[in-house]
């Protein structure tokens, strides 16, 4: 398998991961597309330096989250302004409006967190263990645990406000 083939296969397998990160760190559709492309570009650039010591997904999360931070623009405080077209669009013909609405609310809650906490909660929701999260973020496992319980409390109180 050539380098290009291997790379395209990896991107295809993990395109949901790139989508979710670019959606969490942008507010507008155009910015989301730009960030998506930038992540793919950065992954390609560092593909040669990827060492099989870590899991491919760990490397991808790290590069994608780092890229999202490096491309952060000054955000306007509009936490409820998540456009509908930036969340999941069902592939079936019948659009589940309720599901869309819930996903939208989910994004709104997470986007209210700071840039570090957003990354941590994303990794937790993706089912990553504390050790993996620590490896990706560079925080200690204890620190990850403390922060995550704080984020959970923050989210809980935010969600019960509604």
């Amino acid at each position: 398998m050539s380098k290009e083939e291997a790379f395209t296969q990896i991107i295809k397998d993990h395109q949901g991961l790139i989508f979710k990160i670019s959606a969490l760190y942008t507010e507008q559709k155009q910015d989301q597309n730009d960030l998506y492309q930038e992540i793919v570009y950065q992954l390609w650039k560092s593909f040669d330096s990827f060492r099989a010591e870590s899991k491919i997904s760990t490397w991808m999360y790290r590069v994608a989250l780092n890229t999202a931070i490096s491309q952060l623009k000054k955000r306007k405080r509009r936490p409820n302004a998540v456009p509908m077209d930036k969340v999941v669009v069902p592939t079936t013909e019948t659009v589940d409006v309720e599901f869309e609405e819930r996903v939208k609310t989910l994004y709104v809650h997470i986007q209210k967190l700071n840039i570090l906490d957003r990354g941590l909660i994303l990794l937790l929701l993706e089912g990553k263990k504390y050790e993996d999260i620590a490896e990706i973020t560079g925080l200690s496992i204890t620190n990850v645990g403390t922060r995550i319980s704080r984020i959970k409390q923050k989210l809980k109180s935010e969600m019960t406000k509604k």
Partner: protein
Amino acid sequence: MELQELQTLWSEMSQELEQQKKLTNELIMKMTQERYSNKFQKISMYETIGAVICFISALFILLKFTVLDTWYLQLCGAFTVLFLILLPILTLGSLNRIKRINLAENSFKDTIVQFTKAKKQLLLLQRIGIYLSFLLMFTILPVASKIGKGKDLFLETNIWYVYLPVMAIFLFFFARWGYGCYKNITSSAENILGELE
């Protein structure tokens, strides 16, 4: 929505995304090569074009510097030239610091720390730039008038009666707006740095 619900919803959404595999090999490779219509790349392009314009203007003033025949015109000329050369160099350097962050090797925490520091430096520079540009408005007018028309504006007092008050009002509102923006962004930057360092 409870936390457990949040996790279930995230998994449902991930499954939906799994079904939406839209990327083709061609599209992926295009993204790696062309970086088409990427807004982020345009920022430093605008800064570079701006810097080139500043350097050309500075060079023009330097070539005509002997026309500035009084000490105050020479002082205005020197300030203008320094401003047009130094500020773009410092801004481009600051942008470069952001670009140099190693996205492949850094941990998420290191990237946040480096990016936040570089962003703070850039914002400080932009803020200084805003204030200095008002001084530039004051110095560039007599320099341009002397080089372009041979007139010493300091001897023609009438123009200053209009120019100075207008400039002062503009400076007041612009500086207040600039300070507000800077304060908000840097305080959130300070918070995140405080937590991480």
